[in-house]
């Protein structure tokens, strides 16, 4: 045991700075937050142990939380798979093009997610007055005779948020797919051609996807974390809270209790539930991805 450890002395030295910082700034706070979820903590008085009370309250007494869970699941079920497929398919198609064209297209597709709040431009596009781009055109061509309150009407809020989230969904995962695809071994394709891989679909399934495996799970986790935690975009587009909580998500609910009502124990309980939802979906996706290329 000690001999083995001595052999890896250098390695422990390598990993130490990262591991120490990670434990101090991530592991300890997360464990604390999980413990806080069993307390009542208003940030002024010391936390009081309340057992499962926060969790019981969430599911039995908090109607808004159930709305938030429903909305979050809708977002995740729609934007998750769609944006994951978009990330991969776009990266894969771009990869076939010439380097110059590829660089331009990568920028084009990646640009929306590059700047934190570029998406507020959609507020101009869907503005409720006649200066809004969509309203302006619809009115000008006589399709409607009064501006539509896109960002206030509960019927429109959800579809618009989904549209905007998809617009900026080609982010981290996409970038990693692009870089990963460019690093694939060209020799494998030559060998594949000899082995009778005939068209691009077979090539994708038997050669590209198996090689891309390390990146596929990475992209999936990025997509899961981003699609389950949509919040800032919603607050900035349709207000916080949105009309009738039509776009309210779990993270928004958490922010409500954490930063407005100062009920940190309750907010932590929400974070724990969200965490389990993401872990479960990650496990499901992992099972699916294991089938790729077989």
């Amino acid at each position, binding site marked *: 045991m000690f001999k083995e450890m001595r052999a890896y002395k250098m390695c422990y030295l390598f990993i130490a700075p990262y591991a120490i910082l990670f434990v101090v700034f991530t592991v300890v706070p997360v464990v604390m937050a999980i413990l806080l979820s069993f307390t009542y903590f208003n940030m002024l008085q010391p936390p009081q142990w309340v057992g499962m009370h926060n969790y019981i309250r969430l599911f039995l007494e908090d109607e808004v939380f159930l709305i938030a869970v429903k909305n979050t699941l809708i977002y995740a079920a729609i934007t998750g798979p769609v944006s994951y497929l978009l990330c991969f398919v776009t990266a894969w198609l771009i990869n076939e093009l010439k380097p110059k064209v590829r660089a331009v297209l990568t*920028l084009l597709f990646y640009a929306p997610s590059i700047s934190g709040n570029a998406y507020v431009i959609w507020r101009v596009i869907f503005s409720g007055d006649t200066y809004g781009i969509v309203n302006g055109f619809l009115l000008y061509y006589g399709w409607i005779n009064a501006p539509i309150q896109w960002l206030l009407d509960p019927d429109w809020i959800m579809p618009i948020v989904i549209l905007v989230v998809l617009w900026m969904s080609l982010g981290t995962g996409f970038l990693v797919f692009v870089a990963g695809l460019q690093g694939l071994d060209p020799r494998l394709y030559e060998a594949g051609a000899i082995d009778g891989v005939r068209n691009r679909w077979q090539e994708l399934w038997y050669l590209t996807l198996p090689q891309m495996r390390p990146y596929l799970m990475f992209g999936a986790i990025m997509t899961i974390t981003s699609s389950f935690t949509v919040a800032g975009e919603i607050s900035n587009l349709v207000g916080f809270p949105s009309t009738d909580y039509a776009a309210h998500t779990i993270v928004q609910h958490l922010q409500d209790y954490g930063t407005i009502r100062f009920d940190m124990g309750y907010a932590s309980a929400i974070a724990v539930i969200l965490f389990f939802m*993401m872990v479960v979906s990650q496990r499901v996706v992992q099972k699916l991805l294991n089938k790729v290329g077989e």
Partner: protein
Amino acid sequence: MASRFSIRKTRLSRSTGGDIVIILFLLIGGAFMVIPMILIISNAFKPLNELFLFPPRLIVRNPTTKNFHDLMVMMAQSWVPFGRYLLNSLIIVTLGTLGNVFFGSLAAYVISVRRVPGTKTFMSIVVLSLMFTSEVTRIPNYVTIAFLGWIDSLRSIIIPRWSAPLGLYLVSRFIEGMIDRSLIEAAEIDGAGDFRIYWQIVMPNIKPAWLTMIILSFQELWRTQGGHYIYSEQLKTLPYALNQLAAQGGVARQGVQAAVTLIMMIVPIIVFLINQSKIVDTMGHSGMAN
């Protein structure tokens, strides 16, 4: 590069129908992506009367730099010189990104190249931590940072960043995907030490990984407003100051707001372009070497 493509073109057939579908997909998708971006750029150059026009125009008709000029004037009146905000942002972005890439890749080397016992579990904890909402960890973090005496110091943003989960996870994926085990074994036989293998074999071979990581880290740190640990005005960042200017003033500041959006966007795009071109370069190069 060119040879690689021509080889694949001649051996694998590509149906014309498929090509048309692909081109259509890229055109429609591209248009959906690019139209709002055009609007952002165009709005920054619109005079105020064109911003409020019916019917609205996508493209500016009488471009003006007045919005940027107004912004300059406001910046010049600032109590803290604007250079100071910019400097703070640059310090955070540079040190934060370098540390994130360096410490993350060192750890990834131990986990994915050396495969030291026990480190695999460590990595699954790192990946799991990506799924925990950070808003509820703020209070414990505040306590830690206060204990370390980093409140109201740029360290409170830079140093925690060095252990960002994404850095380790992303680099380790690229090591799995790109590093040939035989290369490592050959280096070991040659008697290369850990640091030499890391620095001279692993890092050059996973250039796309750290170039991508630089893009991602830069972009995230660039929009840092100062966090919850910084109170002094002279330690705040550029996005904080710009947003302060743009957020107030309602209709009259719409033009300035548009200019701010463009400025905030253009810097990460430039960094992206530089890094992206290097990714293409390296891949072409290693393709030849193979």
